[in-house]
């Protein structure tokens, strides 16, 4: 069960609309390493996790990622307010605008719509946690790249915050992996898949 909290995890206050920036930042809503995919990855991996620490960790990080999706969506919403048709054409947001107007649609910056193909649920503790570690790194790099391309201080403040969260999540998934391995066969980690073989 989920309950909505009418607040963001971190304030989003973008003083200057900028559709050109929205065009790239949308990738962290619906791109291959975006926040929608992150939350779906973790929340769906929970069911086959055999250990309580990992059920908790995936629940809590998956929930936080939903909050991050809302923050990135808030950035897009604020960057695209009060756009003139001339700005839409000049910024290159026209291709997005024709399909979605100033709505927030989960898509990659390339225009490829959000796809479950960009995430994995393998049903194996080691495979899933290694996927999660890689996912956190890829999200971190996407935020690095956004920081390279954006010079808006209001946007960058939020992006720096989100990027740092990926580093903390990486550490926690690494610790989760370590706790899992300690519970497994120390002589042969790959003897069984504890998510399936009991």
């Amino acid at each position: 069960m989920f309950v909505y909290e009418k607040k963001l995890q971190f304030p989003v206050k973008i003083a200057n609309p900028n559709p050109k920036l929205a065009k790239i930042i949308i990738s962290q809503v619906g791109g291959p390493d975006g926040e929608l995919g992150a939350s779906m990855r973790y929340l769906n991996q929970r069911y086959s996790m055999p250990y309580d620490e990992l059920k908790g960790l995936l629940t809590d990080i998956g929930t936080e990622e939903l909050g991050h999706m809302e923050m990135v969506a808030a950035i897009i919403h604020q960057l695209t307010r009060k756009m003139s048709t001339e700005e839409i054409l000049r910024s290159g947001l026209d291709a997005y605008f024709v399909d979605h107007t100033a709505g927030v649609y989960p898509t990659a910056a390339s225009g490829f719509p959000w796809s479950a193909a960009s995430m994995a649920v393998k049903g194996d503790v080691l495979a899933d946690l290694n996927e999660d570690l890689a996912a956190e790194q890829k999200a971190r790099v996407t935020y690095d790249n956004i920081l390279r391309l954006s010079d808006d201080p209001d946007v960058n403040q939020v992006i720096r915050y989100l990027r740092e969260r990926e580093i903390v999540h990486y550490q926690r998934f690494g610790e989760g992996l370590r706790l899992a391995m300690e519970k497994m066969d120390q002589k042969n980690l790959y003897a069984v898949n504890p998510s399936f073989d009991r």
Partner: protein
Amino acid sequence: MEKQCAAMERWRLGSLPDPAPLAAAYIPMQEGAEPRYVPQEALSRGTLFPGLDLPFLHVVNPDLEQTPMTEMMAIDFVADELELYLDTHPGDTEIFALYQTILAMQKEARDRMVRLCGPICQTDQLGMERYAWLEAPWPWEYRKRGEG
């Protein structure tokens, strides 16, 4: 400060079990939850823990404006961060005691925000005179600095 640096160094380096298994990724456990930032600084930096604070091109966020909202966000954030820490360190009784303190502060900060700005959760409306859930602002709406 020197003690802080030493503590940070220690868990930057971490420790590996002896011998660490082959064919497995190994990330050192964070050993202990000290040092820590104060809540407002933790929120603006995106982590409670200086040892995990690894900013891109070394650029750090400026301080956030202090409002009842950011004060509540900062306490909420420390709670979130401690929860993730406790998920992988469930036996750390010292941090669980700190978590208790934060939960008490969180309740205070939330009650204050609800009084000032209306419900954060639907259930915050217990005892209210009218249905206040629909009242603006919604979290994604643009509000100028100083407008909460």
